[in-house]
């Protein structure tokens, strides 16, 4: 565990920070393993390691492997979604352009929205959570590791499915919101919308699986001593997000099944002539759709709350208020969905209620912003790339937040709704509010993921290109929207006067492309040539930095004990741990929900291919179901065996057996 420490960018020669720190003298030091520790390490690697080769890769249920795969897959979808955005910008760069026809354009903008929301933003946040939450709470593994693997495979199959269909000209073309009746049976013949509806089912299952694991890992697998008021804010953000996923996603999953049924077996959920209602779809979709935005945004807040203390050298200011703000936002986000429907006939009183809720949700976010500024004010900021992205977040996200407060107004929204003003708003919120912190988080945790640091110089270029690109691309869209440019149009007349600004917008998009390209280059280069990071290159305070970079398969040699909110800053020269977990099986420690006192030992299951096979069966079931209802029956039968095998006791592991006479036999 020797480390080239000079490479750590925070510790330039001559910097006062390299000197002894009176409060945390041992912040840069790593743990020296004794002979005994080395023995244990070897044993645990054998027990916790993924098997070798492709088969081992498929069987793996390790949260770190799955988490990394998840992040990379989501990032590939981000690139595809970006490619689609680029094609749209090319088409719109001048009036009456003929680069794309309406049919192609509509598929592309639908795929862009669908990809970014369902295949990138939510999965990437869940993936970050799945990788980091166990590390941050001091656990060796997520609560249900096989479910974790299953969730990833289902997500991958769903994503591959919709993209295969897209390349076969069967990409959905009715928008990521798929409003009926346009997406209904009469106006969308063929299988395009069915593909979309079923992709929803895939990604919902994956997100729900991820959310369940994150909640239970954070509730039950915390390190001893990590009582509720010591949980890192990122973990709080992921807990809140996961609960939002659990309560929001069923609405759209059910809605998309209604849509599929309308299209396949002649049900009438949305057929007004038989008593159905087009607005029912909008309610179901936005009851999910608005929390969805916060599902993407809240983990980003958690990332910021991780980066700010590390780079300002101060514990976050107002921790209890920050936690309350997250939880309040989570609750409130379920009371705003109707603000997407202000142009539909909704009773006046209802409108006022939803306006009030949509306006007031800005308060908890405002409080968090003030607390971060206070932390920065008290601290000593270091302008490494992660912090730059966070500062960029402030400048851009606040614009998006403020335009959000504006469009919470019913009156103003009736002008702005479904125009480029909204496009500007949502990209400011999602790119400024979620993607910038995500990039920051990526630079921040890259050393933990890979053991090497990303290049700082390129990181700064990456940031500035992105920052300028986002503003040049999206700020003019506010004006375009107010000047009457509606969303989702594939072309426009020169007389509208929208040409010059659209050209500028497309130019800005080029900067974003350059920035992302640079990021990819930096990623691959740093993977091989980056400076070796060591356990804790940034001198951060949370438990993930107490593991090796990248973490060993067993993650923590011993369950760590937490004595403060910033364990690595207060531990001194001795890292307190618990001993006594078994070394021959995948033993994990479960603690009580409130105080995190050790409660029992849970055996984490061994790697297995059954989740993968179950995911394949799930894929067969859902994909064939869009061609025939019998697909559901056949799929369920196919699914039965892998599911039973998945949960059936492992014959290699009979260490804890019941004798049959009311007593336990432990080997």
């Amino acid at each position, binding site marked *: 565990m020797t480390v080239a420490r000079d490479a750590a960018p925070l510790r330039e020669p001559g910097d006062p920070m390299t000197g002894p720190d009176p409060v945390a003298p041992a912040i840069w030091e790593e743990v020296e393993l004794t002979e005994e520790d080395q023995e244990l390490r070897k044993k645990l690697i054998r027990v916790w390691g993924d098997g070798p080769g492709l088969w081992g890769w498929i069987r793996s249920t390790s949260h770190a492997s799955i988490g990394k795969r998840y992040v990379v897959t989501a990032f590939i979808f981000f690139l595809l979604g970006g490619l689609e955005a680029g094609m749209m910008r090319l088409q719109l760069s001048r009036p009456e352009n003929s680069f794309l026809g309406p049919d192609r354009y509509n598929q592309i903008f639908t795929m862009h929205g669908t990809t970014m929301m369902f295949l990138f933003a939510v999965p990437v946040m869940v993936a970050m959570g799945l990788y980091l939450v166990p590390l941050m709470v001091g656990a060796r593994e997520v609560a249900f590791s096989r479910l974790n693997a299953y969730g990833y495979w289902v997500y991958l199959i769903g994503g591959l499915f919709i993209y295969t269909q897209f390349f076969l000209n069967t990409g959905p073309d009715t928008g990521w919101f798929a409003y009926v009746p346009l997406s209904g049976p009469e106006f969308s013949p063929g299988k395009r919308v069915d593909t979309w509806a079923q992709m929803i089912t895939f990604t919902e299952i994956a997100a729900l699986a991820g959310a*369940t694991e994150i909640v239970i890992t954070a509730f039950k697998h915390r390190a001893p001593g990590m009582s509720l008021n010591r949980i890192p804010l990122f973990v709080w953000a992921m807990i809140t997000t996961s609960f939002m996923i659990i309560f929001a996603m069923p609405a759209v999953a059910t809605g998309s099944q209604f849509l599929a049924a309308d299209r396949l077996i002649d049900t009438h959920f949305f057929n007004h002539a038989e008593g159905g209602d087009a607005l029912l779809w909008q309610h179901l979709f936005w009851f999910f759709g608005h929390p969805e935005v916060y599902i993407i945004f809240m983990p980003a807040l958690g990332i910021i709350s991780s980066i700010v203390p590390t780079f300002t050298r101060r514990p976050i200011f107002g921790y209890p208020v920050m936690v309350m703000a997250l939880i309040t936002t989570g609750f409130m986000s379920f009371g705003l969905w109707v603000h997407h429907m202000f142009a539909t006939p909704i009773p006046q009183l209802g409108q006022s209620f939803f306006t009030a809720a949509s306006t007031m949700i800005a308060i908890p976010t405002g409080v968090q912003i003030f607390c971060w500024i206070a932390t920065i004010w008290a601290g000593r900021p270091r302008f490494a790339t992660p912090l730059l992205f966070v500062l960029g977040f402030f400048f851009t996200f606040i614009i998006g937040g403020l335009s959000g407060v504006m469009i919470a107004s019913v009156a103003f929204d009736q002008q702005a709704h479904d125009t480029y003003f909204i496009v500007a708003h949502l990209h400011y919120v999602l790119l400024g509010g979620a993607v910038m912190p995500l990039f920051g988080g990526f630079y921040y945790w890259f050393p933990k993921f890979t053991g090497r640091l990303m290049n700082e110089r390129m990181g700064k270029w990456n940031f500035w290109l992105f920052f300028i690109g986002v503003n040049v691309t999206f700020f003019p869209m506010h004006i375009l929207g107010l000047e009457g440019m509606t969303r989702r149009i594939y072309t426009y007349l020169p007389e509208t006067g929208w040409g010059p600004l659209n050209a500028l917008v497309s130019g800005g998009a080029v900067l974003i492309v350059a920035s992302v390209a640079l990021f990819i280059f930096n990623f691959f280069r740093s993977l091989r040539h980056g400076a070796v990071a060591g356990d804790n290159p940034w001198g951060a305070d949370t438990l993930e930095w107490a593991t090796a970079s990248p973490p060993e398969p067993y993650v923590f040699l011993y369950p760590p004990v937490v004595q403060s909110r910033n364990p690595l800053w207060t531990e001194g020269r001795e890292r307190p741990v618990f001993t006594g977990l078994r070394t021959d099986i995948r033993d994990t420690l479960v603690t009580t929900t409130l105080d995190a006192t050790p409660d029992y030992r849970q055996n984490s299951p061994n790697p297995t291919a059954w989740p993968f096979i179950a995911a394949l069966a799930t894929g067969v079931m859902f994909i064939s179901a869009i061609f025939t209802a019998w697909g559901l029956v056949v799929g369920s039968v196919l699914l039965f065996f892998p599911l039973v095998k998945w949960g059936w006791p492992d014959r290699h592991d009979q260490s804890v057996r019941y004798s049959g006479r009311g007593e336990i036999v432990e080997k």
Partner: protein
Amino acid sequence: MKRYKAVGDVSELPSVVFGKRAITWWGTLMFMFIEGMTVAVCAASYLYIRKNFHDWPPPPTPLPSLLIPTIGVITMLVSIVVMRRVQKAAEALDKPAVTTGLVVMALLGMALVALRFFDFRSLNTHWDTDAYGSTAWASVAFHSTLLFFEAIETTVFAVLALVGPWEMKHFSDAEDNAMYWYFMCGIWIPVYVLLFILPRWL
């Protein structure tokens, strides 16, 4: 260099616990939230559609029949009593009682699945008749997936108890299975009231 300092030992902790100490209990709870939301969304859609009709059920659809669904509900209530005994037996680590109980529950589960097919018929409408039929069928259908899943899971547990390598943790799992069974039955009762009884007054 730092070093590890052992401040406690966990080797004496149990490896199987019951109730909300267990992570499977929490897993079951999360699934209950998810499935509960799904059924709630179906019920909400049913009520939302109500405003588009003068009469409920819309003529000429007759009122839903009560006989079979009511038998189903009574069977569920009985099954809850049986399941309660399974749960107690599991907590007492009484393997023979758990086995018998699970076998009875598996049979009850299959009976409920069979009755469920007649529940659909008792709606006296079809999914493609009108939006009333669609939402009513959807509510029953989504709950049926819970019922099928739970019946199959209980059967698999019964088989495991009869032939499989029964481990300690399965007592805890059987207890969580009981909890999910209560939920599955408990959430059916409002659906039953909504679909089969309320149309008489709505």
